């Protein structure tokens, strides 16, 4: 009977949506705080766009990782795969043999190859994801240094024009001190981010695969009994993650126009942190794909704030660690209060977010 009652308008918010809501509120508060403290810089639209322009690779990686985390796994190879893709593309473009399209294909190919390998080993041979993706990290790192060791700056004209490509919004912008109007600019990477967010969110929400991902992450056994192909779902989650790492690598090289051994270092941990702030749990089954870009943006706004405040770089790491601490504790307190049934949040129907209703009857 409970399922019948659940169809009534006063639904409880699912865990995924609750965490997403917390993340979104935190992001908005954070940005408002930033605007209040530094109105000069954060009130400009360009600052907001730059968050996307400069950090597109991280956000793209976060998206792929989110799917893997919802399915209950983890992928720590993505940062180094991204770096490997950058270096491979740079070497290809500099050798004069390849074209931009060839580099794009190479980037996607490397990403998918890592995804296929890791996905097969994790899903079909049932090896622990942490170890396999750690091996993937080592593999990508070793291949990267084997490929080339020195920083490369791509000078191929076609690619340089792509690097310089930007969309100018003429009606939005600010005047500088001299009174010259500077329109806002959006780089290609930001466009890729938006397209991928829409695509993957649609994939997670409206396709059978997306539903399966939540089911497998929530409880593998019951998902299997429901007739879901658990192994294939996990496999494709890792393939998508590898693909996004490849795309992120290409976007990154498009952004900085070169490659270096140390680029994209520790991005995997940043991506994990972003996803956690965005409300995806490492246990799997809970999470919202829209939360991960918001989590990444929250982390980036924190960094921008600290930078704007002019704090020493050592404090920057400590402060971002502390803020991460606050978020994690906040999330955990909210979840545990909810578990004790003392905390009920009922939203009006028009406020409710799209997402799974899996955890509806829990708690």
């Amino acid at each position, binding site marked *: 009977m409970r399922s019948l009652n659940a169809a009534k308008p006063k639904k409880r918010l699912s865990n995924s949506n609750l965490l997403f809501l917390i993340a979104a509120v935190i992001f908005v508060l954070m940005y408002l705080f930033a605007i209040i403290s530094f109105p000069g810089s954060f009130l400009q639209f360009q600052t907001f766009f730059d968050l996307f322009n400069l950090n597109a690779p991280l956000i793209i990686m976060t998206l792929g990782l989110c799917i893997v985390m919802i399915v209950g796994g*983890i992928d720590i190879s993505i940062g180094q795969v991204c770096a490997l893709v950058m270096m491979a593309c740079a070497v290809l473009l500099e050798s004069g043999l390849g074209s931009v399209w060839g580099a794009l294909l190479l980037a996607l190919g490397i990403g998918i190859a890592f995804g296929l390998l890791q996905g097969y*080993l994790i899903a*079909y*041979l*049932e*090896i*622990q994801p*942490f*170890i*396999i993706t*750690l*091996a*993937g*990290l*080592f*593999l990508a*790192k*070793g*291949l990267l*240094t*084997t490929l080339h*060791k020195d920083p490369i700056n791509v000078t191929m004209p076609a690619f340089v024009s792509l690097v310089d490509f930007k969309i100018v919004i003429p009606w939005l912008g600010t005047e500088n001190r001299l009174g010259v109007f500077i329109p806002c600019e959006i780089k290609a990477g930001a466009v890729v981010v938006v397209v991928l967010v829409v695509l993957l969110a649609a994939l997670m929400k409206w396709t059978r695969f997306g539903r399966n991902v939540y089911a497998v992450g929530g409880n593998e056994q019951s998902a299997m009994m429901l007739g879901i192909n658990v192994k294939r779902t996990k496999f494709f989650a890792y393939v998508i993650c590898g693909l996004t790492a490849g795309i992120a690598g290409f976007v990154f090289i498009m952004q900085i126009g070169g490659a270096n051994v140390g680029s994209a270092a520790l991005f995997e*941990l940043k991506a*994990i*942190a972003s996803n*956690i702030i965005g409300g995806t*749990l*490492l*246990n799997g089954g809970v999470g919202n794909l829209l939360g991960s870009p918001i989590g990444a943006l929250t982390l980036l706004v924190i960094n921008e704030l600290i930078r704007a405040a002019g704090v020493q*770089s*050592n*404090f*920057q*790491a*400590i*402060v*971002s*660690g*502390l803020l*991460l*601490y606050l978020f*994690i*504790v906040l999330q*955990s*307190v909210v*979840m*545990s209060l909810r578990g004790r049934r003392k905390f009920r949040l009922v939203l009006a129907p028009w406020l409710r977010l799209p997402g799974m209703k899996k955890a509806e009857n829990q708690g």
Partner: protein
Amino acid sequence: MRRLKAQVSHLFLPLSVLVILIIINLIKGADYFSITVVKGALYGNIPNILFGASELVILSIGMALVTAASQGQDIGIGAGATITSAVFVLFVLNAGEVTLLTILAGFLVSCVAGLVIGVFNGILVSVFKVQPMVATLILFMGGRSIAFMIDGRLSPILANDISNQIGTVIPGVPLQTPIILTAVFIAIVAVVLKTTNLRLYVESVGINPSAARLNGIDPKKIIFLTFLIMGICTAVAGFIAVNKAGRHDSVNLLKFIMMDAILAVAIGGNSLGGGKFSITGSIIGAYTIEMLNRTLLRLIDVDPATIPAFKAVFIIILMVVASPVVRDFAAKALRWVRFRADSGTVPETGAPDAAVVSDPDTPAKKEV
């Protein structure tokens, strides 16, 4: 006898890897085990491995406990060890004259710092129920900066005789001091596990926290305790590492050790999902990793930067061989071969299968 068999089968993977590595090394050069005596101390490949892996062994012991109890991993150990060793260096440098007592006091102070780190992580994991990897991510992000601020400058140098001797060799003692310290630490851990109920409690919490709670074991306390032990482990590892290096480099000290420590736990036959654990396995796993690193350096005369790729291939092969699917398949194949052999009609097709099964890499599944 049966229990012994079960234990040995648990250690089959790490031991077989170790044996394979030794065989590879012997093929490369027969003088692998040769030990030379320089100024009264032993040097050679084996002492070098024992020397090089000392921090890793200590950290992998702590990691095995944390993994077993909290079903997750601590990725902040490198940063944690950097902080504790920064405290140690600060104490020793401010103490004026360096005697054995100051070193000991500094070590105890750094242990307190390790306990503080353990309390920080432990409260997050046990009380706030944050996943360990997330909780320790905080320290991972901020830890090295904290260590740098404790130092106050870039890499203070620890130039005194006693720390030099702790890092290398005490005159008159044939083994390097880190090896002895590691052995003492292992012995203490073994005694603690033998005389207390820690192992039972940790395993029961790791297998099912709510069942453990119903049986009167507080999972929060046990998880908290494992993080405290982890804190002590990081302090000891940081102490050894900083004395080995002779200077405190807050950026690079024990930089990627958490990956190796987790790998050691996994190679040691422990599940990364918590539950039953084997300290022996993770110790052997840690030595195996060090040996693997040195073997790769010895075998392949290329740039050390390409070593990770070979390491990755090795890990993947190892994990594929040890994976449940391959094990089941091997067990099935073994049973089929036995069945055919028993029925007395050993066909010609049976021979290649037998060859596959007798491959030393494929551990036969224990038949219950």
